[in-house]
Each structure stands twice: as structure tokens, then as C-alpha cells.
């Protein structure tokens, strides 16, 4: 009797411990991949800025403050690269991207004053592309958050948590906010 019990115990334990051997490192890889994708999307947005600034300059050259604000915010946002392990660096990166979002919102507000600029086809195409990148960023963030969630669940929830505890010893990953808190906080003033 006893040997059967021990045998069954060993079988079940090893089955339970086996859970996560593959899925945990795989989930960790997914986090890296989705993070790389977010970086791509943010870069895509940054790449649009020079063209956008030039087009606006053609109509609203003396809106210097706003234009410079965008250029500077973009420089700051593209200068920081992030390492997923470093929570502080991630926070800094998000903050800088948020600042760029705010600067771009302010620019779009300013554009409202220039109907010719608003009607310019080139500008409208850039505007649409900009909205496109915001769309892609939002989707990419959602996916990244999902990969982090998946990993954290595997690490924290039984039985894969056992495997992690005795085998991988990974920490839970820091989560990304769904919305961009910086962008929401600094709502641009509307001056007409």
C-alpha cells in the first residue's frame, strides 16, 4: 500500500512540477518580444515628427514655442532606450513618451487656428498617419500588458508557481499602465 501511495505522490508531484517548465520561459520570451514591438511603434511615431513639424512650419512658422516643444520632446523620447529589467528606466521611458504625446496634442490644438494648414493634403495625410501610430501604440501596449499578465499568473498561480519556486525563481514583472497617465494629466489649454 505504502509504496503505491508514494509512487502516486511522486507521479502527481512531478506532473505538477512539470507544469511550467516550458510555459514559463516561453511567457518570458513573449514579454521581450512584445516590448520590442512597443519600441518599434513608438519609434514609428517619432519618425513622423520631423515631417510633421516641417509641414506645420510652412503655414505657422511663428508658432515657435509649440514647434520647439515637439522637437525637444521627440529628442528626449528617442534618446532613452529601455531595459525590461530596470523598472525605473521603463517608467522614465513611459514618461518621456507621454511628454511627446502632450507636445503633439498641443501642436494639433494650435493647428486649429490655421484653416489652410488643416486643409493641406500633405498635412492631413501626416495627421492620419500620426493617429495611425497612436492606434498601433495602443494595440501594442495592450498586447504587452497581456504578455506580462500571462507571465505573472504563471509565476504566481499554482501549479506553475511551484515550478517557478523550485526551478526558475523568476520575479513577477512590473506591469505597464493601460493608459498613458502623463498624456491624460497634462490636458492642453485651448486658446482662440
Amino acid at each position: 500500500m505504502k509504496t503505491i501511495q508514494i509512487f502516486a505522490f511522486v507521479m502527481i508531484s512531478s506532473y505538477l512540477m512539470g507544469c511550467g517548465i516550458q510555459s514559463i520561459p516561453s511567457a518570458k520570451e513573449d514579454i521581450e518580444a512584445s516590448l520590442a514591438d512597443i519600441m518599434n511603434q513608438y519609434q514609428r511615431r517619432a519618425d513622423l515628427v520631423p515631417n510633421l513639424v516641417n509641414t506645420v512650419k510652412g503655414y505657422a512658422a511663428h508658432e515657435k514655442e509649440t514647434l520647439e516643444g515637439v522637437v525637444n520632446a521627440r529628442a528626449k523620447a528617442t534618446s532613452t532606450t529601455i531595459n525590461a529589467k530596470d523598472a525605473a528606466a521603463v517608467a522614465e521611458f513611459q514618461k518621456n513618451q507621454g511628454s511627446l504625446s502632450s507636445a503633439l496634442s498641443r501642436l494639433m490644438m494650435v493647428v486649429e487656428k490655421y484653416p489652410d494648414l488643416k486643409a493641406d493634403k500633405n498635412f492631413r495625410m501626416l495627421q492620419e498617419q500620426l493617429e495611425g501610430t497612436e492606434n498601433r501604440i495602443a494595440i501594442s501596449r495592450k498586447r504587452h500588458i497581456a504578455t506580462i499578465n500571462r507571465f505573472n499568473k504563471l509565476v504566481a498561480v499554482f501549479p506553475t508557481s511551484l515550478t517557478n519556486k523550485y526551478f526558475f525563481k523568476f520575479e513577477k514583472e512590473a506591469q505597464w499602465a493601460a493608459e498613458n497617465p502623463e498624456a491624460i494629466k497634462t490636458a492642453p489649454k485651448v486658446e482662440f
Partner: protein
Amino acid sequence: MKIVFSKFALTILLIASASLGDAQFGKAPGVSVDSHPSAPVVDRANIISAHQEQTLNSILTTLWEGGGSQIQVLTLPSLNGIPIAQKAFEISERWELGNKERDNGVLLLVSMDEKKIRIEVGEGLEGALPDGSAWKIIEDFMVPLFRSGRTSSAVYIGVHQIIQKTDPGFVWPDGDLENRSQSIPSGSSRSSRLIMIVFLLVFLLMVILGPRGYSRSGVRSGYGGAPYNGTYGADHWRGGGGWSGGGGGFSGGGASGGW
């Protein structure tokens, strides 16, 4: 006793994990979208003529079954408050447009109340149909036609323009060139019309003399005559012609516009 505990924990976990798979499909009030498309063209807003709907259905099926992209058309009376980019993305994923390996799905979404158009482009087609090109299709071809009330032609020409980018080898059936030429927004000058005629003749010659392109099965008048009482069930529209379908990836590519 330890054994019993383990089994118990496992059972609990299995039950718990069943609830982990939560997929949210834009459950906004008022707008119900089927879990799968009934046909390549789903004209909820009723803006496409019966003839052009049939033609598009057969063309898009032929394209997909011949190994090309999976292009879906959806017209809605209203978005009911949901941003068009969000709606298009959710539908593209839910309807599993495109082949899983090739990510070659496209959704052309039109919403009449808001007067908005969006072309949602699958990841695999973003090179062939980048955001700027999608925007130009909407802006240059579809918007003028929508503005002049020619909604059916607008959708028709939109699909045509999309395919020209995503599947340049695909040969549009001859019978509808007449439609196409009428739909091209022309400049008012005589010379631009002349140029168009020249291009049309060249195109005709290429069609007559050129390569066969994709399989033409089903795109003949006899086929077009019978209406699709098609329930294109998800499996049929997705898996026709031996493709496993399974849904391609979307990451927000494409463009929106309005009139």
C-alpha cells in the same frame, strides 16, 4: 492525505484556469456583430447595389481561394459611439481575416452615420499596402464618390484599388471594366479624360494578351447569375480552397478617412 490534497488542488486549478481565457470583443451596447462573416461583402448599411455585391463576392472569393489575400467588406449604418479604428481592429481579429501564417487579411469598413471609412490592413500586407497608400485610396477614390452619393461605386472602386496593391497579379474580370471606368474620378479637363481612355485601352490589351493570373474559376457570367444564398459559414469563407485560415495578425495598420 498528501495525494488527496494535490488532486484537489489540481481540480480547483483546472476549474480556475477555465475562467482565465477572457476574450473581450468590444461588447458595446447596440452594435452586434456576428461571430463570423456571412460572406466577403456584408452590407448592413445597404449601400451596395445587388449586382456589384454579387460581383464583389465572387471576385473576393476567387482571390482568396486562389491563394490571395482575404479581403472583407463591411458596411454599417452606425458605429454607435465606438471609434472606427477600434471597431475595425476588433472585427478583423474576431472574424479571423487572413491566413494565420501570412497575415494577409484586409477589412474595408464603412459607417454611414459618422461618414467614416477605414481600411484595416493585416500585418503581412503592411509592406504592400502601407498606411499612406491606404489613406490615398480612401481620400482619392472613395471620398469623392461618397460625397457625390455614389456609395456602391465607392466601395467597388475601393476594393479594386486595394487589390491592386495587395495582389497586383490578380486580374480583375473584364465584364466590369465599364463600371470601373465610370467610377474613376476624373478631372474636368478633356486631356485627363483622353489619358484615361489610353490607359484603359492599354489595360484591355494587357488583359487580353497578358498572363492568366489567378484562377478564374467562378468568375463568369453564368456564375454571376446565380445569387449567393451563401451562408458563407466561417469555415467556408475562411477555409475555402484548402487554406487553413485561422486568422492572420493585425497590429493596427491601415488608415481612416471620411466624407
